[in-house]
């Protein structure tokens, strides 16, 4: 179901004014600093907040058309994972998760079965019979995720789903979300609020960046994260992304080259994928040098632009051998001086394979 929303809302001195589109089967990531209106946006979509003005449609249905029409939350087919877990304190964990299927008419046994399936997906099967008061923070968060997913909503709203999770749980849940949100038959629209660009990269087709209640940047995930146009996005993202096809040890480029890297667990060889690496991990050499060391990825390029970027200088490349086009590399000013870099200088880039991750890409 395609989500289309255009709305305005004032809360005290804060005002939200956004328009967005989430095509059927895709995920929109919402980034933005604290207090920029991300949760408020989700509240409006869920029907918990009533926009002062605006139209929200999901598929063929109009959910909100201010001021006359406001479909109630329970009638919207949404699932909201709010920023607080807010598990029902009087229900056991399994009944918390079974709540949505049960509300949608499943029998008690059916919905419990569904709930147990989701609980084992989030690795919380062992907690099924506990009360929420007996869970740790991260355990409660996992149960809340299961609860939001178990309803199989048409519109899924996730507010920082990976907060409070440990280093092992976070990638596991990210993988689960990827499986769920990107499964072939999936027709739902998803809006995902996150502070972590890796989540956006792993899960979202598109990104919008909010600031002060307004959209300051939007576009396909890769584009926004690799070429941020606002300082905020640049601080959280600014990654190098190179598209190609996944292979055992890295990424096969359209032109035939290979970028070595560490594949993330859910990459499938032969599928479209993307190599991700930070500008700070790109080493620059004079074009003549050909160091033969551990960095598996070396490529010739030409300096495009050099811009100061906090304490470092960010170099952007222009053309080069296939994948060197438009990459960023962070260097210290001393290195720039020593290598006598300036726009037009031919250079060679080196990136260690262990600094590159290969993520599945969303072909569109």
């Amino acid at each position: 179901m395609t989500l289309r929303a255009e709305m305005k809302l004032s809360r005290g001195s804060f005002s939200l004014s956004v328009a967005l589109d989430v095509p059927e089967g895709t995920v929109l990531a919402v980034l933005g600093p604290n207090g920029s209106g991300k949760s408020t946006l989700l509240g409006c979509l869920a029907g918990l907040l009533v926009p002062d003005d605006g139209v929200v449609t999901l598929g063929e249905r109009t959910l909100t058309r201010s001021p006359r029409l406001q479909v109630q939350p329970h009638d919207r087919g949404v699932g909201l994972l709010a920023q607080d877990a807010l598990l029902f304190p009087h229900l056991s964990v399994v009944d918390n998760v079974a709540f949505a299927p049960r509300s949608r008419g499943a029998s008690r046994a059916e919905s419990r079965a569904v709930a147990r399936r989701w609980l084992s997906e989030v690795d919380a099967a062992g907690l099924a019979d506990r009360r929420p008061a007996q869970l740790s923070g991260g355990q409660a968060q996992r149960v809340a995720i299961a609860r939001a997913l178990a309803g199989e909503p048409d519109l899924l709203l996730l507010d920082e789903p990976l907060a409070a999770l440990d280093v092992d749980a976070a990638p596991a849940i990210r993988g689960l979300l990827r499986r769920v949100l990107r499964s072939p038959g999936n027709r739902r629209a998803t809006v995902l609020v996150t502070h972590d660009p890796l989540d956006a990269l792993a899960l979202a087709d598109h990104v919008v960046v909010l600031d002060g209640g307004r959209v300051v940047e939007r576009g396909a995930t890769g584009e926004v994260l690799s070429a941020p146009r606002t300082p905020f996005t640049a601080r959280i993202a600014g990654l190098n992304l190179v598209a190609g096809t996944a292979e055992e040890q890295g990424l096969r480029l359209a032109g035939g080259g290979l970028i070595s890297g560490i594949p993330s667990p859910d990459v499938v060889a032969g599928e479209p994928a993307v190599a991700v690496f930070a500008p700070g991990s790109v080493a620059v050499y004079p074009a003549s040098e050909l160091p033969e060391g551990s960095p598996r990825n070396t490529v010739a390029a030409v300096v495009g632009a050099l811009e100061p970027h906090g304490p470092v200088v960010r170099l952007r490349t222009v053309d080069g051998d296939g994948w060197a086009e438009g990459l960023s590399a962070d260097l210290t000013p001393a290195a720039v001086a020593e290598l006598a870099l300036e726009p037009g200088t031919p250079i060679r880039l080196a990136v260690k394979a262990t600094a590159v991750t290969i993520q599945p890409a969303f072909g569109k």
Partner: protein
Amino acid sequence: MLWIPAGLALALVVLPVVGLLARTDYARLPELLTSGASLNALRLSLVTAVLSTVLCVLLGVPLAVVLARSRSRGVRVLRAVVLLPLVLPPVVGGLALLFLLGRNGFLGYLLDVTAGVRIPFTTTAVVIAQTFVAMPFLVVSLEGALRGAGDRYERVAATLGARPWTVFRRVTVPLLLPALGSGAVLSFARALGEFGATITFAGSLEGVTRTLPLEVYNQAEADVDSAVALALLLIVVAVVVIAVARPRALEGRP
């Protein structure tokens, strides 16, 4: 610090009862307990008080939720209206019921003519009178608890697709259990002790409408001591019903 006023409050409540216990003529208790009139009254009191508590809960909980959760202006007025039976002197409350359901009352006339049903002087009338006076206790105490608790879990339930009735049944009521327990106890106690409205609306006939408080009054006319003894019976029954029969669930989470 808290113990001082709490102790005072407790003393105010307990000492008079202790005084009562001290003055009771215990020799008379067995005799009273075996008299047919007392037992009839006791049975009737229990049955009607339980029935009206059930009615209060069934009707009062939804009313409390509607009052606490609605945001419209009119609700402020409704809230005051619900309090009316609270301040009505019970006898006047009984009159009010007669005006409505009596033979010449608006609804009572209708019932009599259409269905041949007459309510006054029946056990049904006792239950109605008790429900009328006890309902506000349930509604008002629940409403206070509902507002204090807020509606965050109800909102969560709505985003999970639960319609209002499901939310009420599976979220509102379970979370309200401790307050509901208190409210039910209050209305049970009020129904059990109800006197003025019952005698005015339902009359006082042994086995049909003469509940224990009415019997106590009757006894008091003849002999204060036996009335006190009978009142003790009422107290014991109430405490047993409330302290023992109150389901553990109503005690709230540990």
